[in-house]
């Protein structure tokens, strides 16, 4: 099976969020970057499939030069080669623009399967994979926990809401977005890190892909949400306090 895994490099989860002077993004100096979490699980699924059925795992990532580190990390874990869509201005694109770059960069690859994470830890759009599937004209399924190869294609375990699941079968080629947490992520071995240095990493200049178009969605500004950390005590009888808390969970915390 030939598998492409699309990964994104994102700021560390506990990175300090400061708004930059443009007011449109966070300050990136002294921020550490890492592989987006659900993309790491997508990579793990790809490596497991390759171990079980043979084939090739190709890592695809877009962004500035520093993205090369994250691709090398994926190569060290066992991916066979990498494609880096080099661009210093990805932020000026919307999700459709990024997916168009990806579709163009892999036009000659003809993979059986494309995997990516459910959503990025920074923008959290959760769309790039699904958009890529539509651009490539292939079926997709999202929130996938398990992938099993069967004769007619793939049998998947998909997470639904509220603790429900379903199995889905679909033909290949297909694109799946992977949910975090269902497997244990491997570490790169010393041997893997050594080998990664000699693996092919092809850099494609984003401008050369000829997908240039105006974004249809623009991020005008960012702002820190107003938050007061003073404890709000909910008084009354147990039933009154419980009702008040439920209202907070619905309207303020938005988890209900």
């Amino acid at each position, binding site marked *: 099976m030939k598998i492409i895994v699309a990964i994104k490099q994102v700021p560390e989860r506990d990175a300090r969020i400061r708004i930059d002077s443009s007011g449109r993004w966070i300050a990136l100096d002294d921020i550490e970057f890492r592989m987006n979490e659900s993309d790491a699980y997508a990579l793990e699924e790809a490596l497991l499939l390759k171990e079980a059925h043979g084939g090739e795992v190709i890592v695809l990532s877009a962004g500035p030069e520093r993205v090369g580190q994250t691709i090398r990390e994926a190569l060290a874990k066992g991916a066979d080669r990498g494609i880096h869509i080099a661009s210093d201005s990805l932020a000026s694109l919307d999700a459709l623009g990024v997916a168009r770059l990806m579709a163009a960069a892999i036009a000659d690859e003809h993979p059986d399967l494309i995997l990516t994470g459910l959503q990025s830890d920074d923008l959290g759009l959760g769309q790039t994979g699904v958009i890529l599937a539509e651009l490539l004209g292939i079926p997709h399924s999202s929130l996938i926990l398990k992938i099993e190869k069967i004769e007619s294609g793939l049998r998947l375990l998909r997470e639904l809401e509220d603790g429900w699941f379903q199995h889905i079968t679909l033909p290949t080629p297909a694109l799946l977005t992977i949910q975090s947490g269902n497997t244990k992520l491997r570490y790169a071995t010393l041997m893997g890190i050594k080998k990664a240095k000699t693996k092919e990493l092809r850099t494609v200049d984003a401008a050369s892909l000829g997908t240039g178009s105006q974004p249809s969605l623009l991020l005008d500004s960012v702002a*820190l949400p107003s938050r007061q950390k003073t404890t709000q005590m909910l008084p009354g009888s147990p039933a009154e306090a419980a009702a008040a808390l439920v209202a907070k969970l619905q309207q303020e915390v938005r*988890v209900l």
Partner: protein
Amino acid sequence: MSTVLVFLEAKSGSPSRISLEALAAGAALATATGAQLAAAMVGPAAALDSLGTLAAAISIEHPLLDRYTADGYTAACAQLVARLQPDFVLFPHTYQVRDFAPRLATRLGRVLISDVTAFSLAGSTVTFTRQLFQGKLNGHYHSAAPAPCLVSIQAGAFHAAEPAPTSVPVESFAPTLESSAIRTQPGEPFRAASQTVDLSSAPLIVSVGRGIKDEANITLVQELAQALGAELAASRPICDAGWLPMERQVGSSGQTVAPKLYLAVGISGAIQHLVGMKGSQCVVAINKDENAPIFEIADYGIVGDLFEVVPALTAAIRKAKG
């Protein structure tokens, strides 16, 4: 007149609550932009009888839509959008919408503005707010493309209106679908016993401490966690006692968590525990001691007997979830 179209999602045959919240968002947007409001849902006309004042209520019916597939829903919605020519198309931000709406937007040459929490109008430009970095930052977006603008609305961002009879007769819309165009085969949904525990990725955690007093009382917090759809966690003494497995321990000797909600029941808040959960976005503490340190880092607190408060809270959550 321009139209705001809201796609509702059915849950057990009627529009889900988050769908009605999206409808409320649609109503607010229609009022602000001088548009008319239309609602559509896959399902029978009878399910759309309590949506209040609308310019159009549309039941989308086709045997190939009986079970959700991204291909089927994308095609059906694209056809309805082509027919109604709305300026805005709103969705509830559910797993299902996350699965097909980006595909629909791409087919229409647009980009979905996903997981929106608010909007504002300046001149003729609508600005939509959505969260970045797991809620640590808000981003303000606007669409630079021609209509339609597709938007999904976060759960809890808008208040659903009280049910009222739908003001117009429900129309039926039968999309043209070919079974060969539906490439995925969905199986029957099922519930599984939760398997391995990775608390670090759990969005909701109910955590229990010494205040629970006895192993037999653990079921109280289990029921609360279940009602909330949360993972159950514990402070060290509970795991040391073997009342819950070690893999559920939060704190310096257990897991470090950063959920959207951390509901601490009977946990005083020793520093060894706090280091494992202080990154939580919202902390709720239930404790009988109003001076317990957990209240220093809690966003919401209830001082009281957990044996009274927890069952009341479980009941209130079940009621709210319907």
